[in-house]
């Protein structure tokens, strides 16, 4: 073998290695996708699609069995919205503080703290919520149980914060210094510059941060399951103070005890598919927002 052809061989070998990597990823994704939707298809052979989508009761043990999606969706929506309402403003304010107002030392300490809190396992947070949050919520609001959507929201807000802070902080820090100087040179103060120039210029990254935070909240299972009570009912006006069950918690709770091939089994895969669609939707929205508001650099 000449030197030249050896080089060609190595080149082709490396190329195919990368190709295998790329195709492998795609294959795994397609398999999961196919599996998830095939099982869902099985479910709709015996259960009406509209009954599933608009059903208000999830009662796998009852006869006839009821697999209504709405209570689970309501649970997920309640804890997610409840988490995002405090997490977004607190997260953005923290990001502004770290990138614009804090001194270099303080900023470093805060960044380190944010990184650390991103690393807390969700089960630990759930445990913390169970021990400390649940009894307090119960006594403060005088409820029969402290396992409520609110409790789940607080835990989820804590979990979503590191994502929101670090992604927003990146976006704010990458706003060009020239814009900031231009604003200062016109005689605006730091607050006006942050509010009117820096934040609008970073809006794409900040939106991405918020959407990623929402994604984290929607997909979280363990911590939420531990503190929300898991009652599959559609909450009324006291939505945040009632027990709820999320889509993810339902799968985690029921998958262990369901017999393979039953309608209930297929139903769980179907709500898995629903979760999948929601997540894809959130990512698509994030992309669209990014395209619409290009980061100014």
């Amino acid at each position: 073998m000449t030197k030249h052809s050896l080089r060609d061989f190595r080149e082709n070998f490396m190329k195919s290695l990368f190709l295998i990597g790329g195709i492998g990823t795609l294959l795994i994704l397609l398999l999961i996708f196919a599996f998830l939707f095939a099982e869902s298809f099985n479910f709709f052979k015996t259960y009406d699609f509209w009954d599933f989508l608009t059903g208000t009761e999830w009662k796998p043990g009852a006869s006839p069995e009821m697999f209504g999606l709405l209570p689970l969706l309501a649970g997920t929506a309640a804890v997610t919205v409840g988490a995002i309402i405090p997490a977004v403003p607190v997260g953005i304010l923290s990001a502004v503080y770290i990138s614009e107002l804090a001194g270099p030392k303080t900023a470093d300490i805060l960044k380190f703290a944010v990184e650390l809190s991103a690393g807390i396992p969700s089960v630990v947070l759930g445990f913390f919520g169970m021990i400390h949050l649940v009894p307090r919520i119960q006594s403060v609001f005088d409820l029969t149980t402290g396992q409520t959507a609110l409790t789940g929201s607080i835990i989820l807000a804590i979990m979503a914060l590191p994502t929101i802070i670090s992604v927003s902080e990146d976006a704010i820090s990458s706003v060009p210094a020239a814009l900031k100087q231009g604003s200062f040179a016109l005689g605006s103060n730091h607050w006006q510059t942050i509010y009117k120039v820096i934040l609008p210029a970073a809006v794409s990254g900040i939106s991405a941060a918020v959407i990623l935070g929402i994604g984290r909240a929607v997909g979280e299972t363990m911590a939420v399951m531990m503190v929300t009570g898991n009652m599959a009912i559609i909450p009324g006006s006291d939505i945040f103070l009632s027990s709820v069950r999320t889509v993810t918690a339902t799968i985690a709770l029921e998958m262990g005890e369901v017999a393979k091939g039953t309608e209930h089994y297929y139903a769980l895969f179907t709500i898995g598919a629903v979760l999948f669609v929601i997540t894809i939707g959130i990512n698509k929205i994030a992309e669209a927002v990014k395209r619409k508001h290009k980061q100014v650099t």
Partner: protein
Amino acid sequence: MNATESKNAFSYEDTLSFENAIGFENKYLYEQDPAFSPEMNRKKAIEVKDLNLWYGGNQALKKIYLDIPKNKIFSLIGPSGCGKSTFLRTMNRMNDMISNCRIEGKVCVDGENIYGKGIDVTGLRKRVGMVFQKANPFPMSIYENIAYGPKIHGVSKKEIPGIVEESLRCAALWDEVKDRLKEPALSLSGGQQQRLCIARTLAVKPEVILFDEPCSALDPISTGKIEELMAELKKDYTIVIVTHNMHQAARISDCAAFFLSGELIETGKTAQIFENPQDKRTEGYITGRFG
């Protein structure tokens, strides 16, 4: 404070004597040329006394004394790293944003030391505007870019459309953008963006405008437009410009100052600096032997 008012606050019949009004450091500037009649220069826009500036332990400006006359174009020239941009930025305190920067001495704008106690820095920057090397329009519409300054200074909503039009006209941009005020400023060409930045500066009605190499990123035609504009603007404003372009300094400025290694080597009217420099180092730089 109303900037226009203060600009007209002195009259040519001002009783202040000419000799007192100008600093002894560059007195000859006014004595040698009838164009610099005492009436024109009764007041100095900016007066710099014994200015020293350090970045950490490194002294970037050494004992600068310089007077900048009103309604003239004053160019600061010198090789890269000579301190001319740093000096420009001392006049609107943009160096405040650099954490290890230390300043001693006086810079007086309209007689008031801007490094004195109790100085309102945002008020100062409203009076001393700045146009940067690279055009830096805000990522908003053309209209909003101009309206930004007046809005933050609390100008009433009714007046803003008028100010926007006037500023764009002054910056010779109105005819090009009047039908597309709502479009993003970033859709303009580089030269238009730089004129937009000038218009944005004019909108807050400053007394002095500092230009930090405003044409270094522009093509010759855009540069020509900006130069014409500056010649127009000096009727109402005092202009200080940092430029690397010797020809530009010679073409547009009335006075010039030559900096080298943080020192002010020579200052005078532009023609004299370029045709008959008093210092060997100035001559060397002008004739292209270094820099």
